[in-house]
């Protein structure tokens, strides 16, 4: 029992990070109906941003988090401006290919600049608390609190503010929204900024929890988060969070039951199985194709 409680804590920690990244995938898909394959690599770069920042400035956690989130948001907006916006009216396949290409450009640039994994400097001095047989570190509490806080803030933003309303409106009907005086381009840039910013937060938290960072992280962790977004129903914010925590739990369970090399196999097989039974994910609504 204690063993499972301990594993549950690990699962919540991993799931929080997945959920944060998955939100970025899901937001862009919800607004633009586009799979932003570059998002995983944006997450990876944000961990390197954090690494670079700490290399030069011994910033405290909150400052580092905010700076990295802003820098990553800027990167997300730049990618959208340069690569995705010119293709907005092109066939959907073109923007998927571009996203895939952008992701690989980012990944391989990072790989060329830093061929070996880097060790993240310590940003947060962690304490551990003992509850009977269960160990909880203050780092785990911090990761879960920051992620849940960001998720609640996002939920409030989308449901309660005018900008959130505009975002939801664009998701419903992109053609008639400009007629209502809503600046579509600004709102779409904002969506990318928020999505990338959440990815940036995930990058910092990931760097704290698993301090060895490398260029392949976008593929190993970021794409797993994409799986989480699809499982939950891509385009649906609550689905992304659900998918993230589910995938975290499944991965932790897999590692306890099987050799750790089965992690990817189980995660991607779970995706295929869910797509067979629920082609639109757990919380996704089937889209009606109009003629």
């Amino acid at each position, binding site marked *: 029992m204690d063993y499972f409680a301990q594993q549950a804590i690990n699962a919540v920690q991993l799931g929080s990070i997945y959920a944060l990244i998955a939100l970025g995938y899901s937001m862009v898909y919800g607004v633009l109906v586009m799979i932003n394959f570059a998002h995983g690599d944006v997450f990876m770069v944000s961990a390197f941003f954090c690494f670079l920042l700490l290399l030069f400035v011994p910033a405290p956690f909150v400052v580092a988090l905010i700076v990295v989130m802003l820098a990553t948001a800027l990167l997300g907006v730049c990618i959208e401006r340069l690569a995705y916006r010119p293709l907005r009216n*092109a066939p*959907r*396949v073109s923007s998927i*290919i571009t996203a*895939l290409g*952008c992701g*690989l*450009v980012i990944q391989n640039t990072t790989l060329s600049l830093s061929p070996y994994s880097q060790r993240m400097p310590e940003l947060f001095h962690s304490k551990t608390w003992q509850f009977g047989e269960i160990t909880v570190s203050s780092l785990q509490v911090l990761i879960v609190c920051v992620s849940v806080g960001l998720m609640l803030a996002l939920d409030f933003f989308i449901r309660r503010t005018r900008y959130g309303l505009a975002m939801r409106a664009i998701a419903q009907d992109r053609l008639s929204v400009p007629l209502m005086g809503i600046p579509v381009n600004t709102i779409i840039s904002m969506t990318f900024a928020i999505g990338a910013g959440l990815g940036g937060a995930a990058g910092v938290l990931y760097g704290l929890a698993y301090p060895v960072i490398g260029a392949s992280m976008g593929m190993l962790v970021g*794409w797993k988060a994409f799986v989480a977004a699809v499982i939950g129903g891509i385009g649906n914010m609550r689905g992304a969070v659900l998918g993230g925590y589910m995938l975290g739990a499944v991965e932790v369970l897999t590692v306890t039951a099987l050799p750790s090399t089965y992690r990817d196999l189980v995660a991607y097989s779970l995706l*295929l199985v869910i797509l067979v039974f629920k082609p639109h994910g757990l919380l996704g609504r089937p889209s009606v194709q109009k003629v």
Partner: protein
Amino acid sequence: MRFLQIPPPRGALVALVCFALSACFAIEKFNIVDDYVRFILITLGINIILCASLNLVNGWMGEFSVGHAGFMALGAYLSAIVSAKWLVGTNPQWMFPLAVVAGGLLAAVVGLLLGMLSFKTRGDYLAIVTLAFLMIVKSGIENISYVGGPRGFLGIGNETTLLWTAVWVFLTLWVIRNLVYSRYGRGIIAVREDEIAAGAMGVDTRKAKLTAFVVSSFFGGVAGALFAHQLQFINPGSFDIVKSTEILVMVYLGGIGSLGGSVLGATVFTILVQVLQPLGTWRMVILPLVLVLLMLFRPRGIMGLREFAWFVPRREFPKKEEEK
């Protein structure tokens, strides 16, 4: 480029194929070129097969598959098992084609299952499903110690000759040409243009999509088998998303929905990779960047939706008088 639009004289195509095959035979027999050039030529042939077969799905059918490297992996591993474990010591004259066909068939069967799964819904689902498929194949192979796991599969015979590669290249181009200019192929193109309208006109869209996907995965598997017996060593890492992206670059560089474009794209890509060799990992920055720039400035590629007249089958019915 006008001369490319002139249809070949009768028999010229057969003569060209015969000439090319005998040239390959002569090169093998008398060692006309050095090993490096031979290696590049075989790589070029494999790239043409990969590019033309992926073009069937991504170009003619207009869907987006990123799983071609996965089909390659299936073909490569099964053919390697057949030739290096099951039929070891038998005459390579008939053992090698058998291994290649076995690899292709496995890829085709898996392609059929995957297609049945992903064509339930339209849209980006093929991209998601093929991505998951690619990851499953890679991490699946890593966990099978029978084929060496993550360390890779050693001891594959050097069986991929220039002649065999050329035979498979011509077979691929012939099959895909005849498919896309047939009634089925017209159905596949109709699905790309408007799936609902195609269905309303009586095209069995599901069957058309499955046909294209299965043919494409078969030749993906064949290319993998040739690749395995060219390098004599395969590991799961060689069939990752980077490999898939390379094939995508070839397809979109040469031009979607065009066999001539596929040959051109594969040729330009193969040369480009050799030229950029000294750049090391920066090469892997330039290739996806080419893909992005192509999408931004020339989304259909060099030959997009056009075709060299030599790749168009001769019309068998006589033209009407007034057209002459």
